[in-house]
């Protein structure tokens, strides 16, 4: 029997598991950890993938089992929940602060989805002029502030980054490149 105190302890252990790709934040900060509950003698931990192909989910499940076992929880089921689909809106305020402190710009509010998804297009131009070799810029609904100097004068340099959840930016004020967690 898992007691109420035991469940609270298990929750704390699970919530402290770092994300393998963004180790400055935990799975709870990112909203990947959906639930910690009991079923009889067993502890049931529910997680959700950020992106369909995210390879980190398996490592997270493994780390959850390992840490919970180390805290005395031997019978642990880690389950995946696909619905509702993960949204970057689930990243907590604390998680956003930690991302920002690590030089990663947190996401804006995710676009509301109902009915056909509208195209997001921008016309080229602006101060940069035409750079034939540069990647196209997807529309940003709001400027992404530089996590280093706070400037809103930033440019997206790539729509995708080193992991599925991020895009690449450059600050035009302090000239530093930075990553941005995509709003999804």
């Amino acid at each position, binding site marked *: 029997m898992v007691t109420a105190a035991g469940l609270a302890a298990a929750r704390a252990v699970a919530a402290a598991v770092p994300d393998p790709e963004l180790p400055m934040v935990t799975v709870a900060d990112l909203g990947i950890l959906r639930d910690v509950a009991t079923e009889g003698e067993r502890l049931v931990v529910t997680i959700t993938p950020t992106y369909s192909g995210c390879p980190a989910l398996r490592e997270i499940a493994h780390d959850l089992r390992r840490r919970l076992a180390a805290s005395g929880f031997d019978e642990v089921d880690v389950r995946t929940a696909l619905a509702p689909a993960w949204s970057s809106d689930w990243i907590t305020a604390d998680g956003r602060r930690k991302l920002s402190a690590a030089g990663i710009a947190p996401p804006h509010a995710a676009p509301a989805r109902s009915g056909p998804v509208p195209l997001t297009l921008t016309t080229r131009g602006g101060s940069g002029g035409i750079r034939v070799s540069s990647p196209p810029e997807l529309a940003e609904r709001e400027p992404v502030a530089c996590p280093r100097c706070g400037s809103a004068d930033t440019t997206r340099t790539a729509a995708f980054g080193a992991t599925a959840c991020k895009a690449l930016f450059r600050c035009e004020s302090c000239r530093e490149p930075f990553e941005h967690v995509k709003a*999804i």
Partner: protein
Amino acid sequence: MTEDEFAAYQSLSEETEDHRWAFGTGFTDPLEGIDASVPDGVDAAALTAYCLALGDDALIYSHRLQQWMTRMPELEEETALANIALDLLGQARMLLARAGQAEGRGRREDDLAFFRDEHEFRSVRLAEHTDADFAQLAGRLLVFSAWRLALFGRLAASADPVLAAIAAKGANELAYHRDYAAQWVIRLGDGTPLSHDKMAAALGVIWPLTDELFRADPVAARLPGVAADPAELRAEVDAVLDAVLGAATLDRPQGAPLARVAGKAGRDGVHTEPFGYLLAELQSVARAHPDATW
């Protein structure tokens, strides 16, 4: 890295059984812990075939994108295509796993991906097309992602809760893929005379493959409330393509659909010649070393 940051990986190398360090080894079922039952009243055989076809579309398309790796003109496009390929591979894994569940014969995602032959693959022929240049890559990705997004938008309300969840999740990814492809089609179409002509020529090559996307599907017809009627998708896809082509100063290509073989095409397991080469590359290691772990 702090000790804590390292722990997620370190713990994997300490395992002696199937938990290995490297990504891509000993993967567990992507639907682990999800209720695998098929809802009452749903034709399980049809659901199997339907999920298989949608999974095959993503698996084959993902592989074609992976073949572009190391060949992109810029690192940014390389990471973009790798990410898109990864998203599609994730969708493929879940859909093939769902097909295996609905089939109920114990076949898993790997059995379905690596141990079926060409005529058993149900992907549309657009998915297997070999992009001859970057313009074809961009044009094909625009058409494919616009179509798949329209489809997944409807499947998010499917009466099969697993398919609905996979579609709702995938739709978010596909919207991003579509916007990425649209930006490049516009950039090339509304670029230099040379890039315009190359983009127009690319669409001319892609277009004959689009008719198949909207053809009546007897499998979908057996799944009322679960599947989407392909014909219903055309208006939404056309609206997107018209908007992009308009901004790109490109005309919608005119041209006959790619011929079917004795009335059959991708959804019937009839593919174009390059498919066999793709499949050989995709499956050769798994077939040479069945059940190997490394």
